[in-house]
């Protein structure tokens, strides 16, 4: 099993969800996060007081998928989240040791 963690532009969330649904992935955890990579922040001015805002709002999607499907999922995320500009985000892939469904204690891929 692989954990796929995608950090994307917030306004791309619906597109990504749609793309994942179309390939049959419907389990995911979504969080609103802030951060930055190479993308520069912006300036805010309140009554002349300037603030550099470099932590920008992003959305983090976490999914655990069977290892065989990982590449397919990654491609779907890339295609649906890409605008071609800096700030589109990143995808991280991790190995997952186990998964347990709490209500009936199924384990492994059966629990996904």
């Amino acid at each position, binding site marked *: 099993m692989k954990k796929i963690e995608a950090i994307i532009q917030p306004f791309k969330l619906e597109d990504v969800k749609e793309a994942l649904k179309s390939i049959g992935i419907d389990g995911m955890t979504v969080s609103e996060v802030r951060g930055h990579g190479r993308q520069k922040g912006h300036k*805010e*001015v*309140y*009554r*002349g*007081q300037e*603030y550099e*805002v470099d932590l920008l709002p992003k959305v983090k999607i976490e999914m655990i998928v069977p290892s065989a499907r990982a590449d397919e999922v990654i491609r779907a995320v890339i295609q649906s989240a890409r605008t071609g500009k800096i700030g589109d985000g990143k995808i991280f892939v991790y190995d997952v040791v186990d998964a347990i469904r709490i209500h009936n204690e199924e384990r492994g891929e059966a629990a996904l």
Partner: protein
Amino acid sequence: MSDPVVTCSGIILVVASAGDLASRISGLQEAVQAAQSSADNAWMLASSALVLMMTGPGLALFYGGLVRRKNTLATMMQCFVLMALITVLWALTGYSLAFGEGNALVGDLRYALLRGVDGDPNGDYAPTIPHHTFMVFQLMFAIITPALIAGAFAERMKFSALLVFMTLWALMVYCPMAHMVWGKGGLLNAFAGGAIPCFDFAGGTVVHITSGVSALICALYIGKRQGYPSAAMKPHNLVLSFIGACLLWVGWFGFNAGSALGSSALASSAFVATHFGAAAAALGWIVAEWSRTGKPSVLGAISGAVCGLVAITPASGFVKPLPALVIGFAAGVICYFMVASVKQRFGYDDSLDAFGVHGAGGTVGALLTGVFATNAVNSGLKDAAGRALPLGLVDGNAVQIFHQAVGAAIAWALAAVGTFLILKITDALVGVRVSPEHEIQGLDLSLHGEEAYNFEV
């Protein structure tokens, strides 16, 4: 040809009813007075409520939105508790110290505990409305004035210190200033034989210069917030501030038009000037900000409107609509540079710009009142022959600008010295500033044990 008999009997009839007629005329006079009184009283009660609305929720929302989330409730509480505290003080001695006859500087205790304040008008101040109404209208001004100061020490003052400071400030700064400008026999009262005739229709000196200058002294005395100016201290919710500013704008009609003390043409004139001043100032700030930073901000627009309302306050009952536009626009531009440029240069932490808005706007308004005041709007000042005297520079009375400057200087001096002494006393009694730990935790939790936003499940 008329019938002599009929004519004769008509004369007899008139003679017989002459006494009757006199009583009917006096009855009519009473009815007319009662009608005027109830019309004036209706407007003044509405105005009193509008002015209270400026503090809560107006100013509480305006200030509450400008602070960081952890200090939202504490900031609102600073406004709200003054609605309670000043009211009690007003009943005990405050009203009397401001409006009792007293001497040129401060009132006496004739109205202490509201003795003699009832449904009969007080002819010295407002002959057509109950004394109760006049007293409670003035109370609303005494509430909002100290609340304005809270913007300077937001996010770092102890609640106990606030109570001590405000009690002393209301009695030692506000009441004397109100007496000098509006009280019978006051030093600056142009309409009651003041030695220095000053025009302050609704409180440019009494409310805005005193609160604004006191705010500056507070900011300097209490010191910067931890991390200022390097740490981000963005307003946590400008939507609240927006609603608050709009409530202030509406409430200000009670503040200024209500200061006509009746529903007269003067009230209409003040209403119009108030609105025009606010509008021009919003545009003034936007223009200045847009050309300097490249973006016209919402916070700038609403701040500008408040600056215009401040500046038009002393002038509102003396100037025509177009000068009101000029006063407002000037205030919008000048106040923008005060908060965006002067404050940065000197580095004081007037957290919510109480000085930049009220001190600067109030001073601009006080001086420009001396320029634009005209007896075409307000003919209250008359010579022995009953002719209206010239008021400001536009009437040919250039010396009025000097009188306005002296009035403003007295307000500056009283506020600065009084506030410094009161801060010293407060510091000795309870300590002015919260501990660094409490400041970091936020005053909502550390002082009041609650949080503004509990969105968690």
